[in-house]
């Protein structure tokens, strides 16, 4: 039997995907020809953005190389567009005058970037962002010119602008409206996005309407409707796409905005099918790949004469592929009258989430900063799930609140098997888990190859890795999942710490230079972290930077809601004398302290102090023998003790005395986060040593050492490190443990999550099994303490950083 002839016009993502789907059903039915206007085999158009940004190479994004076409017996014509279809004869003609016959035809011509028809739009240096040729033009421009303007602040425009910035160009994004990505984002999320992009060096001209492109042959500027002008050497128009329907229209196929197709992807000519961005289905033209994959499946099904699939339209979700930006949007995110909105904002973490709810069902979601639960919301949205049972916690995500440290993995484990993980390829969690188990997969690349999950835009990579990790457990070799420290850099905390040590970087500028920070002086998140890392690594040399410390640490007191400060003098081990208390009482009288309180850390807090009064008050306290209690710092806080052997009828050791020694050893030390100690005199544990960062429980035969405890937000009981015999050993183990934490933990990571991240065993390996290592950690700690145990209050009472505490008085005009 001679085969039928199938011709595919358009060698792009939708067309070739249809063939892949077809081959799953039949390889025998057709003799296939693919004709593409571009000179390349089918590549992943989505990945043009990372190619432009230099994160991927062109060869990485080829989806089907020429061997693939050959192996599947496909006759491939590239660089030769079809110019005419003669439907009566079932013939078509290419630009190079090849004439081919077909029995069935698949139109997959994609779309064209819309070029605003203003005067000058056809000058050299004015392009769209659609194909490899455009990317090559941009890369060439970036090496020869300085300035670029991207017209259009949507998904494509921002990705283009991001790439051009990465290539060293000075980029301005011109947008007609006052909100970026207005089709995907509401105003608050768009503002967050804009602020982050601005920090990365992107410039914006909002509400600006392009009137004319200036220049002779090549563009050299743009004039706007209001008459203003801007210089530029390159203009990228990313204002939208138009389905590429010229060929279909000329051959008399019914088109409106796109080629009109029915639910089986057939055009009005039943021999001609169409898929991809060129089609209009139930009045919608799509511009993302996920719907195209569904269309491809249905078209293949009908081409294979199985004829049961129907395409019924898609709900789409969007992510932006700019490294360091987490953004998710789906459904109707602008509320209509009668809708409810649930909003979570955490400006400190840069997180914004909004859900639009109608009749207890999610209708839309916008997320910025933390998008892990986007998949879950998207599933609830598409399933129309009634959320009333959990709506009060829905914004916190799906994870189980009872577990510390395993956040992402637990959240993934909680997802049901039909939760969609890869939106681009429609791959559900169950498909991925099945492939991992049945085919014995261990790496991300394996999973990509077998399931296609994470192989298109890559934004679900983190989810897929988590599924791998939770499915294969220990056997999974993680490609180190890289979470940038903040929007100013692409480097993770570990990379920054590593660079500081290996490259001997000793100033913040040196770190930012070496690691190519995107902002000149960092932000409120990375500056305190860098300051800490430098201090911890170079205690002898690094000059602390007060302006990179949060106000509490700069002013050495806790800022309070009315702008006053609190003062907590240190009481070593919670012990005090009548004289101490008298001195505190006197100070309290002298400065009219409005309230005093005994803290949970066994000392006294004086509230409501005016900033200007702090140095004088500290001077008085200092003269009475007090030093700062560091109740305000990412620092060693207190050592809580119980009554102990001296008085208590159960006490086994001198817990107060040991507490004082520990506090004398450790006070003043800067830490990645706050650090608390306690010593209890017997296992009744009155000092609550088993929820401290370092706790000692005295027993008859010695001292049990406990680490990694936490009261506070999420209680974690300590792990037992070991038992030792003498106080000297307690001090050495304590100092060594602290130093390991100081050197290795990420800034703002308390010991509890740190111990869970690195594992108790790695800590034991060093502290217990390697006496030399323990000793050298302890020595390093003591060395750094030489520079840290200088009472900051005394120093300021004597005039250090005086400007911090003095206001300037003037009379207002």
């Amino acid at each position, binding site marked *: 039997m001679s085969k039928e002839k199938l011709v595919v016009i358009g060698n792009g993502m939708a067309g070739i995907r249809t063939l892949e789907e077809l081959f799953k059903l039949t390889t025998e039915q057709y003799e296939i020809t693919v004709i593409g206007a571009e000179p390349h085999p089918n590549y992943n158009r989505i990945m043009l953005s990372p190619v432009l940004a230099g994160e991927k190479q062109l060869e990485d994004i080829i989806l089907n190389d020429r061997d693939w076409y050959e192996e599947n017996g496909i006759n491939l014509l590239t660089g030769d567009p079809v110019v005419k279809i003669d439907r009566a004869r079932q013939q078509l003609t290419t630009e190079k005058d090849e004439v081919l016959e077909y029995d069935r035809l698949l139109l997959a011509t994609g779309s064209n970037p819309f070029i605003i028809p203003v005067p000058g739009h056809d000058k050299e240096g004015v392009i769209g962002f659609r194909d490899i040729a455009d990317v090559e033009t941009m890369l060439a421009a970036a090496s020869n010119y300085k300035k670029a303007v991207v017209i259009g602040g949507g998904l494509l425009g921002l990705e283009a602008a991001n790439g051009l910035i990465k290539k060293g160009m000075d980029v301005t994004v011109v947008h007609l409206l006052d909100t970026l990505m207005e089709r995907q984002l509401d105003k608050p999320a768009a503002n967050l996005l804009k602020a982050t992009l601005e920090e990365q060096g992107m410039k914006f001209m909002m509400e600006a309407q392009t009137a004319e492109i200036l220049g002779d042959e090549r563009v050299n500027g743009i004039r706007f409707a209001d008459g203003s002008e801007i210089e530029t050497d390159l203009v990228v128009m990313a204002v939208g796409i138009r389905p590429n329907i010229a060929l279909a229209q000329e051959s008399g196929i019914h088109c409106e905005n796109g080629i009109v197709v029915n639910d089986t992807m057939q055009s009005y000519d039943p021999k001609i099918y169409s898929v991809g961005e060129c089609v209009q289905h139930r009045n919608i033209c799509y511009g993302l790949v996920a719907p195209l994959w569904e269309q491809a499946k249905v078209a293949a099904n009908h081409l294979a004469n199985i004829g049961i699939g129907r395409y019924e339209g898609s709900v789409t979700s969007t992510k932006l592929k700019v490294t360091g930006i987490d953004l998710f949007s789906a459904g109707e995110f602008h509320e209509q009258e009668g809708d409810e909105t649930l909003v979570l904002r955490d400006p400190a973490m840069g997180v914004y989430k909004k859900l639009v709810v109608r009749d207890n069902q999610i209708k839309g979601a916008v997320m910025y900063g933390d998008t892990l639960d986007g998949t879950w919301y998207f599933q609830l949205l598409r399933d129309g799930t009634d959320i009333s049972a959990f709506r009060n916690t829905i914004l916190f995500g799906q994870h189980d609140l009872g577990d510390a440290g395993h956040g992402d993995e637990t959240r993934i484990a909680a997802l049901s098997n039909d939760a969609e993980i890869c939106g681009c390829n429609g791959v559900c969690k169950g498909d991925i888990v099945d492939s991992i188990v049945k085919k014995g997969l261990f790496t991300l690349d394996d999973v990509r190859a077998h399931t296609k999950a994470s192989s298109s835009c890559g934004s679900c990579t983190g989810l897929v890795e988590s599924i791998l990790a939770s499915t294969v457990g220990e056997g999974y070799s993680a490609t180190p999942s890289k979470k940038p420290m903040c929007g100013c850099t692409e480097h993770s905390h570990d990379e920054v710490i590593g660079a500081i040590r290996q490259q001997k970087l000793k100033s913040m500028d040196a770190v930012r230079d070496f690691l190519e920070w995107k902002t000149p002086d960092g932000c409120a998140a990375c500056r305190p972290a860098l300051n800490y890392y430098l201090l911890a690594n170079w205690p002898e040399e690094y000059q602390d930077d007060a*302006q990179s410390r949060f106000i509490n640490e700069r002013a050495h007191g806790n800022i309070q809601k009315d702008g006053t400060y609190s003062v907590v003098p240190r009481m070593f081990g919670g012990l005090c004398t009548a004289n101490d208390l008298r001195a505190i009482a006197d100070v309290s009288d002298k400065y009219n302290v409005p309230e005093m309180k005994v803290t949970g850390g066994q000392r006294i807090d004086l509230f409501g102090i005016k900033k200007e009064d702090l140095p004088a008050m500290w001077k008085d306290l200092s003269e009475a023998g007090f030093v700062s209690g560091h109740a305000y710092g990412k620092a060693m806080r207190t050592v809580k003790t119980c009554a102990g052997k001296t008085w208590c009828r159960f006490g086994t050791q001198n817990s107060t005395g040991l507490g004082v020694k520990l506090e004398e050893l450790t006070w003043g030390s800067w830490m990645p986060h706050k650090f608390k100690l306690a010593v209890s005199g017997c296992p009744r544990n009155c000092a609550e040593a088993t929820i401290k960062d370092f706790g000692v429980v005295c027993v008859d035969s010695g001292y049990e050492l406990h680490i990694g405890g936490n009261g506070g937000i999420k209680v974690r009981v300590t792990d037992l490190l070991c038992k030792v015999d003498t106080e000297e050993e307690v001090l050495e183990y304590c100092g060594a443990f602290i130093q390991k934490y100081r050197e290795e933990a990420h800034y703002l990571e308390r010991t509890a999550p740190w111990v869970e991240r690195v594992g108790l065993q790695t800590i034991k390996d060093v502290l217990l099994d390697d006496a030399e290592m323990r000793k050298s950690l302890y020595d390093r700690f003591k060395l750094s303490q030489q520079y840290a145990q200088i009472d900051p209050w005394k120093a300021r009472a004597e005039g250090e950083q005086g400007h911090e505490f003095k*206001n300037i008085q003037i009379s207002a005009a």
Partner: protein
Amino acid sequence: MSNWTPIITLEEIPQLGSRVITTDTMNVAVFRTAKDEVFALRDACPHKGGPLSQGIVHGTSVTCPLHNWKIDLASGEALGPDEGCANVFPTKVEDGMVFLGLNDQSADVA
């Protein structure tokens, strides 16, 4: 009309830091960036009145110490998802001396 009042020398404001000016009616925070630009805002965050002078200065913005709103020093506007605006006062630096422009209008909004 602006009424230029000499306040303080540039040197006396720490780079990436601020000083507080107390007037009869309010506090004004005067900021100095890494590039020695000088900005002045009313020392009250549009969110809950937090003292902006006490925040971390980066680029040309300051992060409020109370709840981390980020405020643009030039316009006084909250950046990011939050909306609000702190009053801005004109400043100029001449021969190392910082001048603050307190005008009738700013007295009104105060």
